[in-house]
């Protein structure tokens, strides 16, 4: 195992790159929790609703742990969690809007949650001590999300008609932006790769494609020939766009601001 990253040895650009990575992971977890929570009462069965509720709680817990890593960089996580406008959120693009149907949520479970897991796996294997110590428990909880997503994906992919069409449409819509995020290789990511904080873009993409290949083949989609989106926002470390204002108001806890306890 490589030695822990010496944060005092990181220059300003390196610290900014690490902050960007932590924030995009934390924001994605928080928005993913909101998207799961949207289906607590509309899922196809009671058991599925309970599972999405539990998964929403998992994601919010993970987000909390990730935001807290900002303290290592001397940053206060509170304003990041509760005071930013939607335009500053760095969550992955497929979570920007509410899922229109269950098939889209299943695609999110497999592809978006899966992409975040790939990034976290690589982060946990890197040199940043907080990621090495805190992320493995998150990944253990993610095993259940992955199992549920894969089971539902197989089920919908094996159906005919509308369910298959919706699943295929949602998958094809979100894949290019996820490939861009997982395979990000701009100056900030290169800096983190060279510091050993995270694996190379090629390693991350290979891991993501390996995880997705079998399931996406069920809808006749070859993940190895799919291309990434090229609309990249380097300031936030995600593709362009922003999450819906309504979702960010929930993420910030606007309605309960007077009751906020830290």
């Amino acid at each position, binding site marked *: 195992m490589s030695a822990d990253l010496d944060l005092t040895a990181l220059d300003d650009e390196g610290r900014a790159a690490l902050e960007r990575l932590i924030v995009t992971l934390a924001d994605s977890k928080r928005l993913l929790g909101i998207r799961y929570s949207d289906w607590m009462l509309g899922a196809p*069965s009671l*058991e*599925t609703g*309970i*599972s999405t509720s*539990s*998964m929403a709680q998992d994601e919010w817990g993970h987000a909390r742990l990730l935001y807290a890593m900002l303290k290592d960089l001397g940053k206060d996580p509170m304003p990041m969690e509760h005071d930013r406008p939607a335009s500053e959120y760095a969550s992955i693009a497929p979570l920007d809007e509410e899922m229109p149907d269950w098939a889209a949520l299943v695609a999110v479970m497999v592809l978006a949650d899966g992409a975040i897991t790939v990034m976290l796996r690589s982060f946990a294997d890197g040199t940043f001590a907080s990621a090495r110590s805190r992320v493995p428990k998150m990944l253990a909880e993610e095993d*259940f999300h992955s*199992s549920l997503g894969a089971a539902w994906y197989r*089920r919908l992919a094996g159906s005919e008609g509308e369910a298959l069409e919706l699943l295929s449409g949602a998958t094809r819509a979100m894949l290019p932006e996820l490939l861009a995020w997982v395979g990000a290789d701009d100056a900030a990511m290169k800096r983190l790769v060279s510091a050993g904080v995270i694996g190379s873009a090629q390693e991350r993409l290979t891991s993501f494609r390996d995880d997705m290949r079998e399931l996406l083949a069920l809808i006749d989609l070859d993940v190895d020939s799919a291309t990434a989106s090229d609309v990249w926002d380097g300031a936030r470390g995600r593709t362009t766009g922003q999450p819906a204002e309504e979702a960010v108001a929930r993420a910030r806890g606007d309605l309960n601001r007077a009751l906020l306890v830290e």
Partner: protein
Amino acid sequence: MNEIVYEVFARKDRGGPLTHIGYIDAFDDETAKVYAWKAYDEEKWFEMCVVQRDAVIPVIDGEGLFAQLKRARS
């Protein structure tokens, strides 16, 4: 949806009793495991298992839950 009923069993501690804690509906073993874990997460379980209800063979043909369920199915 063609769902299968799974009975859920769990024990709190090593060596403790394996207790029937409820049931869930799922469409296969994999989803049954997830649903059971997520639905019955009120305890920090040491062990949890799911068994298809149809696979449970009552030994006593009395008023027990599984005997009643088996009679209701037949």
